[in-house]
């Protein structure tokens, strides 16, 4: 049993932390040049031939940095549904994708192509009109598509549950990054801000909610990494782990942002401070696909109905 990342994986995280801090709005080509869009694409198609654990590191770091790029839409949600030649295009930075699973699509401001499930296949949707809508989290705008027609068949629709598992796990990982950064901001502030002659972090009314936040963020991160590992090795617990992780991590990230705003006082409530942007990403993640309560009802059905899980 070993829950540690390899030195190469740690190096990828350090590289991502550095780059994304400097470049919050990277171009798709920049991400491709770093090798990130093709992390899991086979080497013969221009990728790195690695897996979901390496992608997991990038999801977490992009959540932390509030990266504005269609990385989650493309790599988490669509990539495994693409035939090798189209995966190669993604690896080279020539294409990015969104999957139309409901009326609202994410990253419609930036993706170059759209996939859509229909009947027993997943298709490319060609020639559709797009409208990007005003969205709470400006780094991940939602939009709608209309018209268009089915183009090339990309994959069997039997792949949809697998895509959902990847999507939920990746969102959980992003949420871990968001929550961890909101907590770090609160800790820094609690150390430097003085009231009544002491740093406010001295007071247990401040420090104990932050200790609670650390626990929630770290517990969530353990589960999100477990889900990522399941996906990477094809463990059968992947789907329920991803559902569980998304429910837990999104709620933890929202709570982390809310406590951080409270600890910051008035400054945390201002538009200039980064906290509201972290908070809006956390709320976006919480809202996407299924709420915590909806996901927990899936877990309850798994545990209590039919054959049952455990």
């Amino acid at each position, binding site marked *: *049993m070993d829950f540690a990342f390899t030195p190469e994986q740690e190096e990828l995280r350090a590289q991502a932390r550095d780059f994304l801090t400097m470049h919050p709005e990277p171009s798709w080509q920049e991400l491709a040049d770093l090798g990130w869009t093709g992390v899991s694409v086979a080497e013969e198609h221009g990728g790195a031939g690695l897996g979901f654990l390496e992608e997991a590191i990038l999801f977490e770091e992009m959540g932390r940095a509030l990266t504005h790029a269609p990385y989650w839409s493309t790599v988490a949600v669509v990539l495994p549904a693409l035939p090798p030649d189209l995966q190669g295009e993604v690896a080279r930075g020539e294409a990015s994708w969104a999957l139309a699973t409901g009326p609202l699509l994410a990253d419609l401001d930036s993706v170059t192509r759209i996939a859509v499930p229909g009947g027993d296949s997943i298709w490319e949707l060609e020639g559709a009109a797009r409208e990007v809508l005003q969205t709470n989290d400006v780094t991940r705008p939602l939009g709608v598509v209309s018209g268009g027609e089915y183009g090339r068949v990309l994959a069997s629709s039997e792949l949809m549950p697998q895509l959902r598992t990847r999507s939920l796990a990746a969102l959980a990982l992003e949420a871990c990054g968001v929550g961890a950064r909101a907590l770090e901001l609160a*800790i820094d502030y609690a150390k430097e801000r003085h009231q009544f002659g002491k740093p406010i972090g*001295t007071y247990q009314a401040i420090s104990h909610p932050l200790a*609670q936040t650390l626990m929630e963020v770290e517990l969530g991160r353990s589960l999100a990494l*477990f889900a990522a590992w399941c996906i990477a090795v094809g463990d059968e617990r992947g789907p329920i782990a991803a559902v569980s992780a998304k*429910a837990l991590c999104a709620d933890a990230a929202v709570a982390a942002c809310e406590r951080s705003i409270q600890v910051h006082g008035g400054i945390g409530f201002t538009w200039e401070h980064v906290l509201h942007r972290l908070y809006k990403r956390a709320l976006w993640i919480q809202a996407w696909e299924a709420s915590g309560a909806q996901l927990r009802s899936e877990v309850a059905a798994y545990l209590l109905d039919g054959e049952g899980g455990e």
Partner: protein
Amino acid sequence: MDLRDTPDEAQFRSELCAWLEANVPDELRGHRGGESRYTDDAVRTWSRSLYEAGYIGLTWPKEYGGGGKPYSYQAIFLEELARAEAPQHLGVIGLGMAGPTIIACGTEAHKARYLQPLLSAHEIWCQGFSEPDAGSDLSAVRTSARLEDGHFVIDGQKVWSSYAHIADWCILLTRSDPESQRHAGLTYLIVDMKAPGVEVRPLRQITGEAEFNEIFFSGVEVPVENVLGEIGGGWQVAMTTLLHERGTLGFALVAALEVMISKLVGLARDRGASPVQRDAIAREWIELQAVRYTALRSLSALMKTGIPGPEGSILKQQWSEAAQRVTKLALELLGPDAQLLGENAPYGGYWQHMQLRSRGNTIEAGTTEVLRNIIAERVLGLPRSR
């Protein structure tokens, strides 16, 4: 990262499961702990058979009778022991606290004298740390140790001491310098519980059982060679003990919670659950998975550094609060039946007992409030509140 057992770990696990299946006495399966774990000769016999089968002291150095194995083996052992609902070894305090402290801070003579009988459950240990006026603030201990003619003379009172009424030895934190304050001037001693002047009085607790005790020391003589660490350096030794108390406990706690939650799921299947209760059950199951993989993450860190990290505080706190929520949820599912005791109590009174017992979980081995201070100060790096 590979969360599967290595081939060697898998073999160890399957041999252990087969051994438990064949050897856990029926009357001890599902043993709830509590008072009978001390009085039952069967528990002592069971502890010895665990030792003879080579499952006790798995990670301890071989020269002291241990198995010399990585920490993952101890994790597997605790996990499978809890899953089999077999009672723990009787020497919990010795294995988790006294033994690791002796290994870290003791002399070769201490190691040669104390470790093997501790492993084999021939000698039982208790802990003398808390006092009536020194609870969360352990540095307020007043029990005095006066050096006279090559031995210490102990006077004072300790409290909340599990196993004291059956213990052979006590790890005792004393104030050896009467002029000293707080962390200075403390000395950590190994005390013979059969020595003249030691008196143990059991304390009856919320469940009706007497699991812990008061210990009174009146002029008890302790040889000077029974000091662990330096005279006056007892605080550092005590911190070593507490680090191990929380550090190696994680897996046992997770496995105990896993057993409890699987019983909760069974209860909900038997009796039905409302949508709100289903949501609460799912929440507990999800958090259990999170705690389980946090324990695994902290195990990986422990295997790298050899020293338990502050994650132990996270696990202990999360487990204790989960145990309180889960048992309450179970009572809610049972309805008025949950108020019945004895023969009429559903599931043998398991939930009634566990619910009351769980109130102690957020107090024993570091209160939730103290653990939050530890996390705030040592993990988050916030300024001390005291």
